[in-house]
């Protein structure tokens, strides 16, 4: 029962943050509501027993990635976005389409819930077990992600660094 109450509280905070991200005009307000979404998602992970994932969610997502976003917003001095006139057909067809699709998906999912409920702490995701899995069964993907991160670092430095020097006018080809 407590589990369900906690799920509902943090789930509604999560949805409220996501809707606030859409409603806000200023990017910094959107970024802060995304932090709210990520923090409440970390609580949902804890409810599912995924302790390591919850910690990583707070440290990497709410910490590192969002700091990067806020830093770029402040660096570029991004102001409130100007609204553009969307097409009327998109509004007329899109809103009912989203509603119908959402209700349909929710109905199918809730109707198929002959599955067992998820118990609190049924699957302990301790860092020790996760580490064993990463460094034994998933060693190759782990190494590949390290190469990916290396390439991403180099790409970010090249893209955001000083622009390439223009070729001199009198330079020979």
């Amino acid at each position: 029962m407590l589990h369900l109450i906690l799920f509902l509280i943090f789930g509604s905070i999560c949805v409220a943050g996501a809707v606030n991200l859409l409603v806000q005009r200023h990017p910094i307000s959107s970024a802060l509501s995304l932090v709210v979404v990520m923090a409440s998602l970390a609580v949902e992970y804890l409810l599912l027993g995924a302790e390591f994932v919850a910690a990583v969610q707070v440290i990497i997502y709410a910490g590192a990635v969002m700091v990067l976003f806020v830093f770029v917003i402040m660096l570029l001095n991004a102001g409130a976005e100007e609204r553009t006139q969307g097409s009327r057909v998109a509004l007329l067809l899109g809103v009912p389409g989203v509603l119908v699709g959402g209700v349909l998906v929710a109905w199918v999912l809730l109707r198929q819930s002959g599955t067992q409920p998820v118990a609190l702490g049924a699957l302990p995701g301790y860092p020790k077990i996760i580490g064993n899995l990463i460094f034994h069964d998933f060693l190759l993907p782990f190494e590949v992600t390290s190469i990916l991160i290396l390439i991403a670092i180099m790409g970010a430095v090249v893209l955001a660094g000083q622009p390439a020097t223009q070729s001199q006018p009198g330079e020979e080809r």
Partner: protein
Amino acid sequence: MVPLSYYLVLSGILFACGVIGFLIKRNIITIFMSIELMLNGVNLSFVAFAAHWQRLSGQIFVFFVMVVAAAEAAVGLGIIIAVFRTRETLNVDQVNLLKL
């Protein structure tokens, strides 16, 4: 005890909010944040299924998704800075040509 479908519905709502933000937002940074929101929605369903089937592989996958999202954020924000440097705008409606 929470049924698995509740988690999946929450995950679907988050993903739908991300898609809507991706479509209606005009600021390139906010569009990027909508992509992060979609990734978070998928992560929630990964963890819920991991708990449901008692397999920890789902949580490992969340870890990999986070790594890819972090790499994507670093490169994407670098691209945003490069675009802003040449166009002096963040509005995607004004960034509709490859040529300057």
